[in-house]
């Protein structure tokens, strides 16, 4: 049992899903050839000037709304000055004293206990380029580095939490919840491994009950959920050891290494703390009118909580709702189906989308650009709902619809009609089968009810699988009586 409690605050950098960079018209498309998505502005050429991306502003404001922040009517960009090869201008355009959002929160759930984590601020800033270290695995022994500026000037929002978390589980829950919200509103794709979302952990220790905060260290290079747990554990242990042996924790920035599960101090760029912030003279203040904020709010996609409530009303399970929230493209398809739903229940659509359709689409590119139209799919489900086809038939038809692109009705025509649910037609078949299999009928009468399945099998065969199974069974049983 530790003598110390941990105090954790998180700084999350999230890349915004815009088409172009924050201050220039270069594409933000991932995977472009080295130094191909660049221009005088993001290269920091002499004479180039920044112009703010309208959609980046919209997304930053949406993030602020989703996180219950006060959207600032006037915010100001500032220069953060330091030298590094991936920083073309020798300064980063960020926001300092007057960020775009202040004072929000999000609610996390850890083992059934809900907790509110404060959000201090959200500000906009440009990303730096990439350094590819050559001659060794990492920066330490490299002989030289190559600078790729494709990523330079990508729009980021930095979300700073209050130091409200007290455990790795809470930190993890915060990141999961934040990620889900940002993904759901379409602002960020939450990919920790690829770096579209980056988490820096600020952690300090203090005695339980102590009001003051201890000295904190910042831990960087945390690129997965598992790393969040491990990095916090590693840093907690390190600081605990220092304090218990009577030492003092030195404020510093540390790098987390997943292979050794330790943190080491980042070689401090001397005087790196003096960023000499001042208002960016190449940009004017960002003024947001009440009207603009309202229209952004009105146009926002629904938040996870709202989606869960709505799906619950539609009869979906919590588990299914969570899947749909996580799988954005699947959910878009699902929503399209709901619009065309008609007689089909949301629950039914959901079952098929998450189950059979998902399995069939996986090898064909999934829901990204689905090879079946939502309207065709819903038509198929409608045929089931109106007893025109059986569930079993529908499964086979679905596979064929995906392969051939045919509509359900066209397919049904080539198959020679759908499910037979006409009682009188089925009764004829049942009577015929019973007449041909008197011995089985007798067995059933004698109490071996399981033998009725044989009779049903015969009816199904005679109907080429189209007879409605439960109807057949009830007709058999009533005839035998």
């Amino acid at each position, binding site marked *: 049992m530790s003598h110390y409690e941990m105090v954790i605050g998180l700084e999350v950098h999230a890349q915004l899903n*815009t*088409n*172009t960079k924050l201050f*220039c*018209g*270069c*594409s933000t498309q991932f995977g472009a*050839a*080295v*130094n191909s998505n*660049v*221009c*005088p502005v993001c*290269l920091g050429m002499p004479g180039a000037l920044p*112009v*703010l*991306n*309208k*959609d*980046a*502003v919209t997304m930053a404001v949406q993030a602020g709304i989703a996180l219950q922040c006060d959207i600032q009517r006037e915010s*100001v*960009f500032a220069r953060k000055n330091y*030298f590094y*090869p991936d920083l073309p201008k020798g300064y980063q355009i960020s926001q300092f004293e007057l960020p775009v959002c202040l004072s929000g929160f999000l609610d996390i759930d850890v083992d059934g206990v809900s907790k509110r984590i404060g959000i201090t601020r959200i500000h906009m800033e440009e990303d730096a380029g990439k*350094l*590819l*270290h050559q*001659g060794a695995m990492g*920066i*330490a022994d*490299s*002989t*030289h*580095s*190559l*600078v*790729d*500026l494709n990523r330079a000037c990508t729009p980021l929002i930095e979300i700073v939490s209050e130091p409200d978390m007290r455990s790795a589980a809470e930190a993890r829950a915060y990141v999961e919840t934040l990620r889900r919200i940002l993904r759901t509103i379409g602002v960020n794709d939450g990919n920790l491994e690829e770096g579209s979302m980056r988490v820096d952990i600020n952690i300090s220790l203090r005695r339980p009950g102590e009001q003051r905060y201890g000295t904190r260290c910042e831990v960087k290079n945390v690129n997965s959920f598992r790393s969040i747990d491990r990095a916090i554990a590693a840093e907690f242990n390190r600081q605990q050891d220092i304090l218990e042996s009577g030492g003092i924790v030195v404020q510093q920035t540390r790098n987390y290494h997943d292979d050794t599960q330790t943190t080491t101090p980042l*070689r401090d760029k*001397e*005087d790196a703390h*003096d960023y*000499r912030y001042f*208002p960016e*003279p190449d*940009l*004017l*203040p*960002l*003024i947001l009118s009440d009207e603009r904020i309202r229209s952004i709010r009105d146009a926002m996609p629904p938040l996870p909580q709202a989606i869960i409530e709505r799906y619950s009303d539609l009869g979906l399970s919590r588990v299914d709702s969570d899947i749909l929230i996580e799988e954005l493209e699947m959910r878009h398809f699902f929503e399209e189906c709901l619009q065309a739903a008609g007689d089909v229940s949301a629950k039914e659509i959901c079952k098929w989308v998450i189950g059979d359709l998902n399995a069939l689409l996986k090898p064909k590119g999934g829901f990204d650009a689905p090879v079946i139209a939502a309207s065709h799919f819903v038509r198929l489900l409608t045929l089931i709902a109106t007893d025109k086809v059986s569930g079993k038939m529908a499964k086979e038809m679905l596979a064929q619809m995906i392969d051939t692109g045919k509509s359900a009705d066209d397919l049904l025509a080539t198959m020679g009609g759908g499910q037979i649910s006409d009682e009188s037609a089925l009764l004829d078949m049942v009577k015929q089968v019973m007449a041909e299999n008197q011995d089985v009928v007798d067995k059933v009468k004698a109490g071996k009810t399981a033998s009725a399945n044989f009779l049903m099998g015969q009816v199904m065969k005679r109907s080429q699988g189209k007879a409605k199974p439960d109807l057949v069974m009830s007709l058999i049983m009533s005839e035998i009586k």
Partner: protein
Amino acid sequence: MAELSIQDLDHVIRLAHLDIEPERKSLYLKKLQNVLTYVDQLKQLDVDDVRPSSHALNQSTRLRDDVVVPQPDLALEPNAPLWEDHAFRVPKILG
């Protein structure tokens, strides 16, 4: 206002990433001290209730549509001091 010391100057030289010969440093120190002494006259003004001016203009910052603008060839290689694999090569960062 405290006088600019040689340590202050060294600190600022480090921040500005300039390599300056020792002989020039003392000359710079004197000249900078002269300017700082001169600009100290601003202390004579009462600015307590004054808002700082970053700009002459009173408009909100211009916004750009989120549409890709294709770039013509930027001739990066001829201007690059050291170009390797279509990237800017720099010496080792540590050591």
